[in-house]
């Protein structure tokens, strides 16, 4: 046991000193077959974003769908007509915009 600990002490210490990771916000949206759009939010360090605000806003700045991400960090809503964008809002300066043109249709 002691021998094993000695063997792995250095590699473990080296791995423990991994550089601090940034956590940039990210948001991906895809259209489901039923005309619904599913958006998934999160952060680039791998953490999810349950409870974070996600609004669907028209080009005229009218909020079409206002919601919060569920426990699985996703929100599904009906695709609005016309031009819109999805705003993942984790606080001032921590937002991601997804334009309707960037939401792939099935």
């Amino acid at each position, binding site marked *: 046991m002691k021998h094993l600990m000695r063997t792995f002490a250095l590699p473990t210490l080296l791995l423990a000193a991994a550089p601090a990771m*940034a956590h940039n916000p*990210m948001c*991906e949206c895809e259209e489901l077959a039923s005309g619904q759009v599913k958006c998934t939010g999160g952060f680039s360090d791998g953490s999810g974003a349950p409870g974070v605000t996600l609004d669907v806003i028209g080009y005229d700045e009218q909020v079409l769908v206002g919601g919060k991400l569920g426990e699985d960090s996703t929100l599904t809503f009906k695709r609005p007509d016309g031009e819109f964008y999805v705003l993942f*809002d984790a606080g001032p*300066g921590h937002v991601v915009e997804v334009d309707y043109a960037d939401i792939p249709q099935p």
Partner: protein
Amino acid sequence: MSRAQTLTASPLKQAWLKWRFHLNILLILIPLGFMPKYFADAKLFRGEAGLGANIVRDIQVGPYSLDLAEMRDQEPQADGPAGFFKVFNAALCKACIQDVKATYLRIGKPRSLRAAGTIFFGAPYNMSTSLPIPPRTSPDAQIWITVEGWDGSMHQASVPLAQASPATVAWLKKQGGKK
């Protein structure tokens, strides 16, 4: 079999046992090789090496003004599934520090204050933010600076991306429409 006999090892083994102690010296020499980079980074992060590369001075944003620079003169760096990012630094003018609540940076004109882009953080003399660079950004894009004052006012100004970060524009042209 006597004990003395088992201790006679090959010459190679003997040399190893005799000299392995001196590997310690290597442990001191290896870090020395990394020192210049370490000190250069420390200088950059403390702001002693200036604001960064390609400094754009005295950008007038409403009643305020600021200096903008990219952290390093290099192409955007990938951050996993979140996409590509570029770190920018900014310094507010000394007279505006008291009045400015927040400074934001975004590629293209913001749609609203809520979507003003990434927020600058840190000391007002040397603030930083990492700006997401969408791979489909046009090389002649502008980066927009939004300044929010404590009085509730909002002011905007723009700088050509080609001026603020030539390396990013070169990167955009190189991968032109691949994504």
